[in-house]
């Protein structure tokens, strides 16, 4: 469904991605793993067109999206959930969801605010609350719900467990697995190996902006040497 090939990206003068290649299949959850600064977030932003790739291709459903503006990539069916959450703090929960709303492609059950509240019941209890007065966990749920309102077929989830209490992380994992059951494909980035293991099918290990290793999540958990090499601090 998503095929990234030889992706390069720069922040100003700094060369961050050095030819990342990876694939996400229909209905699959792939997890990007790597240390701080390895290029996980930049990979996502680059796929999304927020950091325009300087070279390489981003193929989604057979269509090359590299270099397209972010809004076209979103309309093509890729949803992006940023690491910093980036909730519209002045807008209420309802209004945040309204910003994300886009028509669903044919044959897909469209997301509505009600469906989002089913997935994250907490949000249903605070529809009129401004985003700025929500806890970190609530904001994380809202940012995912907001992106879902655009009816994406592939979700880019940047460190959804970061900074959350363990019980919220668990709930987040349940929600992500529920989304997978609905047929959504997900590219995830994580530092929390336990969380990644709970949700992902496959892992892509990246280091200094390059893909170093890819394996099924189970194989990675069994392979101490690889984990030590790419993940331990």
């Amino acid at each position: 469904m998503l095929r990234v090939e030889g992706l390069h990206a720069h922040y100003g003068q700094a060369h961050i991605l050095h030819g990342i290649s990876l694939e996400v299949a229909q209905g699959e959850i792939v997890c990007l793993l790597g240390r701080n600064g390895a290029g996980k977030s930049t990979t996502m932003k680059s796929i999304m067109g927020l950091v325009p790739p300087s070279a390489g291709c981003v193929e989604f459903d057979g269509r090359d999206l590299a270099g397209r503006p972010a809004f076209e990539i979103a309309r093509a069916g890729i949803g992006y959930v940023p690491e910093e959450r980036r909730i519209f703090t002045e807008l209420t929960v309802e209004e945040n969801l309204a910003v994300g709303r886009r028509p669903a492609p044919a044959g897909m059950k469209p997301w509505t605010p009600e469906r989002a509240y089913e997935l994250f019941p907490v949000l249903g209890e605070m529809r009129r609350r401004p985003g700025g007065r929500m806890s970190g966990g609530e904001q994380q749920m809202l940012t995912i719900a907001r992106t879902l309102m655009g009816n994406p077929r592939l979700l880019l989830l940047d460190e959804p467990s970061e900074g959350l209490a363990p019980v919220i992380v668990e709930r987040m994992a349940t929600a992500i697995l529920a989304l997978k059951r609905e047929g959504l494909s997900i590219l995830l980035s994580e530092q929390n190996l336990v969380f990644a293991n709970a949700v992902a099918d496959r892992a892509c290990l990246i280091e200094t902006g390059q893909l170093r290793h890819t394996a099924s999540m189970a194989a990675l958990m069994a392979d101490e040497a690889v984990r030590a090499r790419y993940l331990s601090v």
Partner: protein
Amino acid sequence: MDSLIVQALNGLASASSLFLVAAGLTVIFGVSRIVNFAHGSLYMLGAYLGWTLTAHGPLAQLGGFFGFWGGVLLAAAATGLIGAAIEFLLLRRIYRAPELFQLLATFAVVLIVQDLTLLIWGPQDLLGPRAPLLRGATQIFGLRFPRYELFLICVGPVMLALLWLLFHRTRFGILVRAATQDREMVAALGVDQRKLFTSVFALGSALAGLAGALQLPREAVNLHMDMAVIVEAFVIVVIGGLGSLGGAFLAALLIGELHAFGILIFPRITLVLAFLVMAAVLILRPHGLMGRKPSGLPPASIASPPLPGTPKWLAQAGLVALVLLLVLPPFLGDYTLSVMADMAMMVLFAASLHLIMGPGGMASFGHAAYFGAGAYGAALLAKHLMAPMEVGLIFAPFAAGIVGLVFGWFCVRLSGVYSAMLTLAFAQIAWSTAFQWVEFTGGDNGILGVWPSEWARGKLVFWYLSLALCGLGVVLLRRVLFAPFGMALRAQRDSPLRAEAIGIDTVRVRWVAFAIAAAAAGMAGALFAYGKGSVFPSFLGIPRSVDALVMVLLGGVQTVLGPLFGAVAYTGLQEQLSRVSDLWRLVLGFAILALVLFFPGGLAGALRAREERA
């Protein structure tokens, strides 16, 4: 008592139209982060279009009610379309350019609209029609009060309510509010920003146009409406808090009443009252009455590359230029020499502003204050103490530096547009001091007879003197940039937090830079005074501050040589154009637009880019 009530109602009526203009400005700023200098021009266009459309528009044949009100609404719609066209044709191409560059582009639009309006409607003031149904006066508390003013009083709150509904009850409005906070995220959610920006520009421009057209029955339409209203609107938007409609409304009421009563209570300082209030508000509430500290991510800024060393060919070219400047003048005429001396002063003036804008990372919209402080410092010494030029030239940088220390103390504590607006406020305060304190400064008549000493009267000698002092000033400013102080200055611009963490007192560094820049500008100002033999309040006026901005931006903020090129190019263009054509604003405006579109790094930036490619 009666007159107080009438004044209060007058104030409310002015507040309504001020609010309309400010509302458009604040909405446009919120979404696009563009400080739209051309907003006043749109207001003026609305008034002129309204004048034409109420008399000759498609609905004018109907006459009376439909003729007038139809014409006003058509004028607003037409202004909205013009705003959308400006966004579509111009601003859309430069959203990725640094913020101040966009300011320069909108300033070019101001110049172009000025001359186009002059071409179409002519220089004379135009009297608008009366409003049907609202002619005459009504009795209130036994007082006669014009009906049209009462109608205007209602327009403000009604428009506020309509805008509130628009922004809270429609998808468009919600998207606008979301984009005001984080437009990149809005794009990532699939919203086409280009359409959003164009429609926001159309809305804001239509509001300005409506305000302009509604002024028709109140005052004559003239060519000065644009600058007058834009400054007021900036003040209101900043007092209210950028992006806050409610704040803009409150501030408009405040300023409207302030004008109405200021004339009664403080007739001597009416011109400066609004700016005093703005300065006070900003000092107490750095983000305006209802503004909030920008939440979320800081706006994406373009990292400035390190300052380049001087390439060999450039040093050689500079040496050749210097030799020419020393050897050629004896063969040049007096006119050319005085133009060249002016250019030298402008180079120093621009270089001083560049210190705080480029390496300092602060914008100043009121740099003329320090230029004027130097000029007035020297002139006042000459007038009251008969001081010779030598004393004046030594004293001027100190005078300007002290003014810079005082004003700067406040300005460096704010950030971004707020800081820039505070510099503008202080400059206006300085200007009105010169303008209204007639006994001391001569007021509008200025101070005459500020001549150089006997030995420097000849144009040739004065040129060498200007070259020496301005050259010295520029060299010193350049030394500052590459000294440890300059590095600290650049460090605090690039990352205030990290700079603080390694022990740099960022506020103090900015403050000192501000004062150094002020002193250098003061030297340029004093020379300018001796060159002209007189000083006038216009030395501290907004147009001169804008000149400095344009020179720096034209040359390129990110290079050391930028202000030099910018000053020479701008002064030269202005000088040449005003000699050959009455429409110099039009030509200059298009020249600036061409530069903005094709050389987004300024003249020096373009030069450097060429060199890097080679």
